[in-house]
């Protein structure tokens, strides 16, 4: 690492330190948030369990197979939410003028905004999602091959990158329409809910757009099929599960382009 990169890293670390120190001045409210946040994760896993209680199988998948999908999606989402979830506050940052303050500092805007909030309160969600994944892996009969082990590591990471891109993309809309919050959320949280179920439960253009054109099908569904060694009822080959990192990279690239355009389009607010 050269001296310049090291300095830059030090700068971002300083931002992180600032957040840690700030956090320690509100200890009690931190504890409350930590536990109230847990509700979010357990709830989306529970919803899936409830659906499977009602019918023995969903689109030909059993409860434990469904559990694998929801846990992959939930872990990827929890990681993304932990790392970049607070970007959905961009609207407030624009309104209060924090964005102006960020833009006059000698650091990239996006990492600065991400480091403005240290979401330790979301850390418990990560643990819960991880635990559900372990349960799902143990209850399914998975034949472990080296490529499947690699996939098991790659899939949640790719899912995290993918959801992070969706977070950034939907936040970028704020630069054009300050009140785009609800529209943005429908893609982030709607996307998470979409990936919690096997793709064959969706039909027609809806499936075509969300699962394939936008890539949500590659977050949990295709990797889960590859891990289970099940053929895709929709006909994609078994290696489609390994496409998830590629899909994530494309999404990240797209998000970066839109974010940059958004910054250029930023209008600030009067003062």
């Amino acid at each position, binding site marked *: 690492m050269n001296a310049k990169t090291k300095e830059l890293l030090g700068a971002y670390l300083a931002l992180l330190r600032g957040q840690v120190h700030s956090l320690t001045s509100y200890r009690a409210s931190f504890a409350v948030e930590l536990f109230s946040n847990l509700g979010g994760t357990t709830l989306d896993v529970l919803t899936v369990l409830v659906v499977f209680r009602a019918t023995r199988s969903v689109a030909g998948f059993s409860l434990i197979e469904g559990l694998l999908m929801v846990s992959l999606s939930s872990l990827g989402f929890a990681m993304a939410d932990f790392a970049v979830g607070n970007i959905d506050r961009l609207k407030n940052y624009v309104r209060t003028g924090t964005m102006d303050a960020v833009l*006059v500092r000698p650091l990239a805007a996006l990492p600065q905004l991400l480091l403005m909030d240290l979401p330790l309160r979301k850390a418990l969600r990560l643990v819960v999602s991880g635990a559900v994944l372990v349960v799902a892996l143990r209850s399914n009969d998975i034949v472990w091959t080296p490529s499947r082990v690699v996939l098991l590591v790659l899939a949640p990471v790719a899912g995290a990158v993918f959801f992070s891109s969706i977070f950034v993309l939907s936040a970028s809309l704020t630069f054009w329409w300050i009140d785009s919050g609800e529209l943005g959320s429908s893609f982030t949280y709607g996307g998470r809910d979409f990936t919690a179920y096997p793709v064959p439960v969706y039909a027609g253009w809806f499936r075509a757009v969300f699962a394939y054109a936008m890539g949500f099908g590659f977050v949990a569904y295709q990797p889960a099929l590859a891990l289970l060694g099940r053929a895709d009822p929709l006909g994609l080959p078994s290696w489609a599960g390994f496409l998830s990192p590629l899909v994530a990279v494309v999404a990240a690239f797209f998000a970066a382009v839109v974010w940059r355009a958004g910054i250029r389009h930023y*209008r600030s607010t009067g*003062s």
Partner: protein
Amino acid sequence: MSLIQMHNLRKDFTVRVKAGRFRREKRIVPAVNGVNLTFERGEMAGYIGPNGAGKSTTLKMLTGVLTPSSGDVRVCGLQPVPQRTKLALQIGVVFGQRSQLWWDLPLRDSFSLLRHIYRVPADAHAGRLKRCRELLDLDDFMDTPVRQLSLGQRMRGELTAALLHGPSVLFLDEPTIGLDVVSKQAVRSFLAELGQGGDLTLVLTTHDLADIERLCRRLVVIDHGSVVHDGTIEALHARYGSHRRLVVDLDVPLPEGFAVPGAELLSVEADRHRATFELVTTQVGAVVSELTALRDLSVVEPDIEDVVAKLYRA
């Protein structure tokens, strides 16, 4: 080469205006309308203009926050938006209504974090901080969390934060807004002191003309996005024909029909024992020598607020 250059600088905002029950019309509003200005190293310049005249927008384009709609802008030889992070190391910015400090941390911690963010060597940082602490009397509240500081204290902290990396230009957007008289004076004398060195270029926007009278030799008046005056305060007075006023107190009533060529009688008060003249082409002596039983007199300098109000209305 000039330190700051603006060439045909323009910023348009698109505003949607209600045009019917459901229809909305798109309207382009030029916030900054083809501004040409240059500032040299060491210059202290003040920007004034009514609300919405384009002062803050200009400052935001100079600091890389906003992308110009068209035209060229260079600060320290850099293009503010594409080279934003590079430029940030060379400029200091104080937005009166935006904070650079960490709300929950003591000033001391904010300053030390800023040292890392701006990658400033420890000794240079310590030297600058020491100077600011002395000039701005920061010592009493260095350990107080920013959220508990008064506005005046916070502004002193903001000024320090903007200077710790040794910028060559300092941009101040309404630095005295909302401050009490004492804090205003503290901020002004600090800025005046900074300007003495001659290295730091200072560009400030304000509504308080006292800021400009105290600090800036150069005054830029902007209205509806265009520069309507660029020069000294004296030049502004000369251009708009504002004159000094003479107020006299008399022991006997002022005679009816009293007149002195070149002086205009503005008002008579207190049973004709007090009169105010505007000295259009003549001097104090010419009026005084015509008066009998003069008890007291005072000369009032032209009020810059009046001149500017005239400008805004034009």
